C-alpha cells in the first residue's frame, strides 16, 4: 500500500512538472503548429524572473511579504515570458507562418540569443528591457485607433516609446543600485530558495511528501483547468480554435487573425514562464535550464496527439509513471524474484539518464504504430 502510494505520488510529481512545462507548447505547437525551439528558453526566462522577484522581495520595504513571493512570481513570470514571447511572435515567427523548417531554425537561433543574453547582460538591465517592451506593447493596444490619426500620430507614438524607455531605464538603474547581485552579469547558476513555509514536507499516512512538489502539483492543476476553461468557454477561446482550424475563413468572418496569433502565442509563452517558476523550485537556475526540458515537452505533445489537451495531460502522467517505474528501479521492488538476466537489465536502466533513453525508445516505438499519438483527431473532416 505504501509502495503504491509513494510510486503514485512520485509519478504525479514528475508528470506534473512535465505537464506544466508542456502545456504552453501544447498551445504553441499543438494548436498553432509553430515549432518553437525557444520554448525552453522562455521557461528559463520565467525561472530567472522568479529569482529576480525573490531578490526584490528581500528588500527592506517588501520584506514583510517575503512569504508570498512565490505566488507573485507566478504572475510576474507569466507576464515576463508572455512579453518576450509576444515580441518573438511579432518580430520573427509572424513572418514564417507556414514554413516549419525556417521557423525551427529561426527559433533555435533565438534560443541561443536568449541564453547568451542572460549570461552577458546583468539581470537588472534585462528587467529594464522587459519593462520597456511590456509598456510599449501595452500602449500599442490601449491607445484607441482614432487618436492615432494625422499629425498627432507621430507625437503620441514618440511619447509612448519615450515613456516606456524611461520606465525601463529607471527600473534598471534602481534595481542595479539596490540589489548588488543583479548589477553584474554572471553565467553561473543561481538558486531560488523557497520561503520557510514551503520547506519540509507534509505527513500523510506515515509518509512525507515534500511541500515544493505539492505546490508544483497545485500550480499544474490550476494551469490546466484555467487553460481548458479559457479555450472552451471564453470568447477568445472560440476565436483561437476557429483560427487554428481554418485561418482564411475565420479572417473572412471578421476575426482579426493577427490579434488571435499574438494572444495565443503570448499565453503559450506565459505558461512556459509559469513552468519556469516550477522548475526554479526544483534545482538551480542557469542559462541552460530550458534545454533540459524542451525535448521532453515535444515528446509529451506528440505522444498525446497534437492539438489535444487531454492527450497532453495523459501523456505527461504516463511518462511520469514510466520514469518512476524504470528510473527509480521500482520494478525490482515490486517484483523481487525477477529472473537474474531481466533483473540486471532493469537495474542497468534504473538511473535517471538511462531511464530517459528507455522512455524515448519506447515512445519512438509507440509512434511507429500510432503516428498521430494517443488521441488522434477523428471524424469526417480528417480526410479532407
Amino acid at each position, binding site marked *: 500500500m505504501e509502495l503504491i502510494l509513494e510510486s503514485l505520488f512520485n509519478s504525479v510529481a514528475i508528470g506534473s512538472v512535465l505537464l506544466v512545462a508542456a502545456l504552453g507548447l501544447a498551445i504553441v505547437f499543438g494548436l498553432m503548429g509553430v515549432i518553437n525551439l525557444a520554448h525552453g528558453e522562455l521557461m528559463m526566462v520565467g525561472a530567472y524572473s522568479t529569482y529576480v522577484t525573490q531578490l526584490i522581495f528581500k528588500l527592506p520595504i517588501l520584506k514583510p511579504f517575503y512569504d508570498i513571493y512565490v505566488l507573485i512570481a507566478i504572475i510576474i513570470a507569466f507576464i515576463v515570458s508572455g512579453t518576450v514571447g509576444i515580441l518573438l511572435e511579432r518580430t520573427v515567427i509572424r513572418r514564417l507562418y507556414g514554413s516549419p523548417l525556417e521557423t525551427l531554425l529561426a527559433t533555435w537561433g533565438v534560443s541561443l540569443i536568449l541564453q547568451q543574453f542572460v549570461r552577458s547582460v546583468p539581470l537588472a538591465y534585462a528587467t529594464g528591457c522587459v519593462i520597456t517592451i511590456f509598456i510599449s506593447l501595452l500602449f500599442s493596444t490601449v491607445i484607441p485607433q482614432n487618436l492615432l490619426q494625422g499629425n498627432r500620430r507621430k507625437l503620441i507614438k514618440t511619447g509612448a516609446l519615450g515613456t516606456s524607455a524611461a520606465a525601463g531605464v529607471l527600473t534598471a538603474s534602481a534595481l542595479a543600485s539596490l540589489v548588488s547581485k543583479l548589477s553584474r552579469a554572471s553565467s553561473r547558476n543561481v538558486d531560488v530558495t523557497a520561503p520557510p513555509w514551503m520547506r519540509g514536507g507534509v505527513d500523510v499516512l506515515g509518509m512525507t511528501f515534500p511541500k515544493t512538489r505539492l505546490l508544483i502539483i497545485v500550480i499544474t492543476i490550476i494551469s490546466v483547468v484555467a487553460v481548458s476553461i479559457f479555450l472552451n468557454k471564453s470568447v477568445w477561446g472560440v476565436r483561437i480554435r476557429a483560427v487554428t*482550424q481554418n485561418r482564411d475563413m475565420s479572417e*473572412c468572418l471578421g476575426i482579426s*487573425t493577427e490579434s488571435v496569433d499574438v494572444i495565443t502565442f503570448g499565453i503559450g509563452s506565459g505558461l512556459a514562464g509559469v513552468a519556469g517558476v516550477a522548475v526554479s523550485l526544483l534545482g538551480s537556475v542557469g542559462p541552460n535550464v530550458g534545454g533540459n526540458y524542451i525535448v521532453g515537452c515535444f515528446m509529451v505533445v506528440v505522444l498525446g496527439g497534437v492539438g489535444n489537451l487531454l492527450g497532453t495531460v495523459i501523456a505527461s502522467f504516463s511518462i511520469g509513471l514510466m520514469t518512476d517505474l524504470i528510473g527509480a528501479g521500482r520494478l525490482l521492488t515490486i517484483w523481487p524474484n525477477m529472473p537474474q538476466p531481466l533483473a540486471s537489465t532493469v537495474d542497468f536502466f534504473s538511473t535517471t539518464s538511462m531511464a530517459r533513453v528507455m522512455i524515448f525508445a519506447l515512445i519512438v516505438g509507440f509512434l511507429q504504430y500510432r503516428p498521430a499519438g494517443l488521441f488522434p483527431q477523428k471524424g*469526417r473532416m480528417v480526410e479532407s
Partner: protein
Amino acid sequence: MNLLEVSNLNTYYSESHILRNVDLRIKAGEMVCLIGRNGVGKTTLLKSLIGLLKPRGGEILFEGSSIIRSKPHQRARSGIAYVPQGREIIPYLTVEENLTLGMEALPGGIQTNKRIDPFIFELFPILKDFLLRKGGDLSGGQQQQLAIGRALLGHPKLLLLDEPTEGIQPNVIQDIETAVRRIIKETGIGVLLVEQHLHFVRQADRYYAMQRGGIVASGPTSELSKDVISKFLSV
C-alpha cells in the same frame, strides 16, 4: 449609389494574370449572378472582393469608400459576408459556435452578441436540431445551410455566394434558393452569386458573364438567350 463598384480590377496568382480589367456594379436589394465556365476566374473575383487575394491594380468601392487596402476581417466588419465554395465550416466547432462566429462581424463582435437570431432557424430548421453537433460532421447540404446562416448573422449589406448548390441534393437546392430570395426581399441586401444551376441563375436580376478573366457580357437575366446560356453555363 452603388453598393459595390469594381473598376479595372486585375488580380494575379504569383505571375499568372487571372482577372483582367474587371468592372462590376451591384445595387442594394439586387441579386447579381456571375456565370462562366470552370477556371475563368469567378472564384478569384470573389476572393479579391473579400480580400483573400490582393489585386495588383484597380479599385473596389463599397458604399462609396475604397476597401482595396483593407484586410478581410475589416471588410467583413464593414458589411461584406462571404460563403465560399466548399462551405469552409470550422470543422471541430459545434454548429452553435459556428453560427455564433458569424456575429463577429457585428459591432462589438461575439463579446456583445451572443444570442443567435431565431430567424436563422426559420430559414433553415435543420440547424436547430444539430446545434450541438460538430460542424464537420454535417452533410454537404447541411453545411451549406450553416454557411449561409452564419454569413447572415453578421447582418451583411452584401452577400457573396460561391456555387451554393454545387454537389447538393435537389430538395436542399430548392430550400437554399427560397431562402436567398426571401433574404433579399426582407432585408434588401445585395447578393453576388456564382452559379451553374440554370434555375437559380434565372432568379437573379442581372448577370455578368466571364471568359478568360474578363467580363464579356452582361444584362438582365430575362434577356438570357439560349446562345449565351450554352456558351457560359456547363449545362
